[in-house]
């Protein structure tokens, strides 16, 4: 051990470069499509080309006879597999559940719905055979718009869902009470707001490899998954009806997920079942990009009418929200929870609003399934309330920053209950982040510049937009989110095992897993500090149900605050045991042992210290342990958080709008975030950067569009615009730090904050640029033509 008397070097808080990056950026990583198994076969999926139809017949004769084709199956061949489960149904209300089977039987409900599968020796042969198949469809009427789907005369998708309603859910005060508050408000505003459908577009598409071992009856699944343990549970207990211990699920390196890889998809049980049918030959299925766009989940897609009450000085007195949430042709794994718990209960944002009523109707339409996408409900809520703030500012003449300040929950209000069924916000101090963001951007100068250009009649207008956001992370206390409460069909605790091997090397296993977040670095920093072992000696293991304790996976910005706490607590247990053993080794009382920087010594005698390595060796060989102590330093924790965490901050965006063309240019982007204590600032900055890019893309570029007959018009990356490096500005980031009291590290979570904050900041900026023309609101994406038309109409 080197330099043992040096002051401990704290790694938590250091911007260490990610230890996983060399392998990820040099092609040394192993993604799903890199997995090649002996005897592996390739599956190709035939998909519905129509939005809604009965399947009269499927002709597989040509495909079956094609070179390399091993087998062709349709939905009829998998009637022994149950439909995929919907694991999060909205709490305390009826959910009219319809979930997909591995392949459609009798009816298809959206373009891209899988109807048959070909297994062939090569993916090329599988694709050729898919093309050679023909389906005879009896086409049925199609509906793609959520509100329209609930109206009289709309096509009906599922027998058990009259008017295509999945769920009808409310939160907050009674509607009549909020109506009265609205009526009593001096300022009254109504706004129709569309939060358009998005396609998550991770760099790696989705897929699965299933392998059945006829000798043991065991199955192995490799899948692009954010939650392998949950997949194992759902596939075995709910779909296949086999014992959970007969399936091992491995998530190889996962190339981005953004939520879309949380869920159970058809291809996971399908490849397993196919492998069994083929006597154990592994079956690989990897989506191409077109398939990813058609049949991996989409995000957002809300249509909302909001009624706003306010005072003349900008205090928001009442909000009445009616939202139609388009959930697609079937329910995806956790779809009903997104527009209810994660959206409805967050619409208060960072404000004290005394009267809120939220009414959400979840709806089936002939479109791809909609489920969690980076932020999942909170972006929709933040967009709504941040547009509301600007609408109130506009109507009252109060500065948008002051509207926010006047309504902010104050620092001594925490823990704060917004009154709409969310857990109490843990901690916060909203105004310093707002003030700092305005200071960085030069708010007063911007106002002058804006006025100057307007008066001078310049072609390029300037606009700036604020977004003060709060979100809920670190999901979640099982008792609150579970079946008796919010309807989540399991717990949401997290696990970690910490093991110190004989040589003093440490292996940590966690139920969370990275798909780009840098767990292997952040968690090693945490363990290095808490246990006092060198960073290099710590290995973080994850992503395989064999060898890791059950965990719920990575989403909802929960890995650090929930998974990290499980690690933190396991380390503490290891440390306590090590101290006991050190006391024994040093022949001292345990209370006289000092633990410092990975060494234990008797108070006053730091020179005669035992290192963690020496203690681990003693614990492992077990020649001389205290009475009753078990060998080995090996501790597991199952940690159920007492609350969620609530990161916040203010983002400010400055745009220029070209009046001739409607083109928007992003001039500046300032983000002051508070994600609590920070383990690795470089990783947090990276998360914020990526998040902002995804959020600003919703404001300006992205939007999935279906034709009236159910075709996805934006079905390729030639039409669906994800942001490129040249389309985003240089980000100016700062942080305030308000530790979370929810967990011992004081962390809040940073994975989704950027996305949640940036969409309203950019939209508010663009609308601000043209507000002098009398434009109050525009729906996203704010494309050049949309702006050009709006300006032209306003000036006509």
């Amino acid at each position, binding site marked *: 051990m080197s330099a043992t008397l040096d002051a401990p070097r704290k790694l938590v808080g250091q911007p260490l470069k990610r230890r996983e990056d060399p392998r990820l950026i040099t092609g040394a990583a192993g993604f799903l499509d890199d997995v090649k198994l002996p005897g592996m076969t390739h599956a190709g999926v035939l998909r519905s080309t129509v939005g809604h139809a009965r399947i009269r017949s499927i002709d597989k004769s040509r495909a079956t006879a094609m070179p390399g084709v091993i087998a062709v199956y349709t939905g009829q061949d998998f009637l022994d597999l149950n439909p995929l489960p919907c694991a999060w149904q909205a709490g305390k209300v009826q959910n009219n559940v319809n979930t997909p089977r591995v392949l459609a039987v009798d009816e298809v409900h959206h373009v891209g719905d899988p109807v048959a599968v070909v297994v062939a020796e090569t993916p090329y042969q599988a694709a050729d055979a898919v093309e050679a198949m023909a389906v005879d469809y009896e086409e049925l009427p199609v509906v793609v718009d959520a509100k329209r789907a609930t109206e009289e005369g709309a096509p009906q998708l599922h027998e058990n869902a009259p008017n295509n309603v999945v769920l009808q859910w409310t939160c907050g005060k009674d509607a009549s009470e909020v109506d009265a508050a609205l009526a009593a408000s001096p300022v009254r505003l109504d706004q129709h707001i569309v939060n358009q459908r998005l396609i998550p577009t991770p760099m790696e598409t989705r897929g699965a490899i299933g392998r059945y071992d006829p000798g043991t009856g065991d199955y192995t699944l490799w899948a692009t998954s954010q939650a392998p343990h949950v997949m194992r549970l759902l596939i075995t207990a709910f779909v296949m009806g086999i014992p959970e211990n007969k399936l091992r699920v491995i998530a190889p390196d996962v190339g981005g997920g953004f939520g879309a890889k949380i869920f159970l998809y058809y291809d996971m049980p399908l490849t397993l079942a196919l492998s069994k049918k083929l006597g154990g030959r592994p079956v690989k299925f990897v989506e191409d990009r077109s398939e990813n766009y058609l049949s991996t989940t989409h995000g957002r897609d809300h249509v909302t009418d909001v009624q706003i009450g306010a005072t003349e000085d900008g205090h928001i007195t009442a909000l009445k929200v009616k939202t139609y949430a388009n959930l697609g042709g079937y329910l995806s794994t956790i779809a009903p929870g997104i527009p209810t718990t994660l959206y409805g209960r967050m619409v208060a944002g960072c404000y004290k609003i005394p009267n809120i009523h939220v009414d959400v109707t979840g709806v089936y339409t002939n479109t791809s399934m909609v489920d969690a996408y980076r932020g999942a409900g909170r972006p929709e809520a933040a967009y709504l309330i941040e547009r509301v703030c600007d609408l109130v500012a506009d109507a009252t003449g109060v500065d948008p920053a002051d509207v926010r300040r006047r309504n902010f929950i104050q620092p001594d209000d925490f823990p704060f209950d917004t009154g709409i069924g969310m857990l109490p916000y843990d901690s916060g101090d909203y105004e310093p982040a707002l003030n700092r963001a305005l200071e960085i951007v030069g708010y007063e100068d911007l106002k002058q510049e804006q006025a100057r250009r307007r008066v001078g009649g310049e072609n390029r207008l300037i606009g700036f937009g604020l977004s003060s956001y709060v979100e809920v992370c670190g999901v979640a206390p099982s008792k609150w989110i579970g079946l008796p409460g919010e309807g989540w069909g399991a717990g949401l605790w997290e696990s970690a095992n910490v093991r110190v091997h004989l040589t003093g090397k440490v292996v940590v296993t966690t139920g969370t897993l990275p798909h780009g977040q840098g767990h292997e670095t952040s968690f090693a920093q945490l363990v290095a500090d808490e246990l006092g072992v060198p960073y290099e000696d710590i290995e973080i293991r994850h992503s395989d149900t064999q060898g890791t304790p059950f965990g719920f996976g990575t989403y909802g910005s929960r890995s650090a605050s929930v998974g990290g706490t499980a690690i933190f607590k396991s380390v503490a247990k290891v440390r306590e045991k090590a101290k006991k053993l050190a006391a024994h080794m040093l022949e001292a009382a345990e209370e006289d042992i000092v633990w410092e920087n990975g060494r234990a010594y008797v108070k006053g005698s730091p020179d005669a210290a035992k290192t963690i390595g020496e203690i681990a060796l003693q614990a492992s060989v077990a020649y001389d342990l205290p009475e009753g102590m078990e060998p080995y330093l090996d501790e597991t924790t199952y940690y159920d958080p007492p609350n969620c965490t609530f990161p916040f901050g203010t983002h400010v965006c400055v745009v220029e709008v070209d009046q001739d063309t409607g083109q928007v240019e992003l001039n500046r982007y300032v983000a002051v975030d508070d994600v609590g204590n920070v383990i690795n600032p470089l990783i947090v900055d990276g998360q914020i950067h990526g998040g902002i890019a995804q959020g600003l893309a919703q404001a300006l*570029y992205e939007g999935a569009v279906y034709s009236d007959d159910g075709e996805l018009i*934006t079905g390729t990356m030639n039409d669906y615009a994800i942001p490129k490096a040249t389309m985003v500005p240089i980000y100016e980031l700062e942080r305030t730090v308000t530790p979370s009291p929810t967990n011992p590290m004081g962390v809040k979570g940073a994975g989704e904050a950027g996305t949640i904050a940036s969409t309203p900041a950019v939209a508010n900026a663009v609308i601000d640029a043209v507000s002098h023309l009398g434009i109050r609101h525009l729906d996203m994406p704010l494309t050049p*033509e949309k702006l050009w038309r709006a300006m032209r109409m306003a000036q006509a």
Partner: protein
Amino acid sequence: MFPSQFDYYRPSSIAEAVGLLGANPDAKILAGGHSLLPAMKLRLAAPGALVDLGRIQELRGIRVNGGVTLGAMTTYEEIQDSAEVRQRVPMLAEAAGTVGDPQVRARGTLGGSLAHSDPAADLTAVFLALGGEVAAVGSGGERTISADDLFVDLLTTSLQPDEVITQIRFPVNGGTAMAYEKQEHPASGYAIVGVAAVLQLGDGNVCQSARLAVTGCTSKATRLSSAEAALVGQPLNDERIMQAAQGAAEGLEINGDLYASEEYRRHLVTVMTRRVLQRALSTGTN
């Protein structure tokens, strides 16, 4: 994204390529592949064979000979980086730099772009405005096709199925001002509307000749003849430019889609024409 089965040929000479095209009637020429291969992967195109021109040395290189002559397989990146092109035909280098992204520019070729005649390509309009010509070789020998005669319709040129573009030639004249302006699609980078302008200027900025071409909104790169007529013989000032731009979209059959309507694109033709003329003038003549 798996294309249908196809045969692959890699000729080492133009003659060999022409022979292969004659022998394989359902063959397509593979140049940079950045339009053809995506279409094949989406199974929108399923040629029985590809004839890859990538190893034919005589199709490469940039030569100065009064004008500028480029081998058909010259990439956008080579054009963008070429000092000769930047000096003599600056708009060509500039426009090449706006195509797609660095990966596309490293592979995509000028010859491929012209032969494909994509309605939203950049260099089709640039080629047309510059009044270039292509040399093409087929079973009937070599011939020259002028810019005005190359583009026939959507994805259609006057090339015969067994003809290969070998060279693209651009004239270089003194007293010429030129520029290219486009508004691009945020996903594809293709032009929503792009306008290329080449002006021959005399004393007092009197416009002696004008060639303007539009891309992105018409079925093929198309001359803006009303705007040209409004400019020729006139001293070019702001007022004249505004007037030419106002009428620029006259007579054009303009396409619309989900992202940009016909009406909006018609408006953009005016805006881009004004901007390209202003910029050509402010950049000055060579």
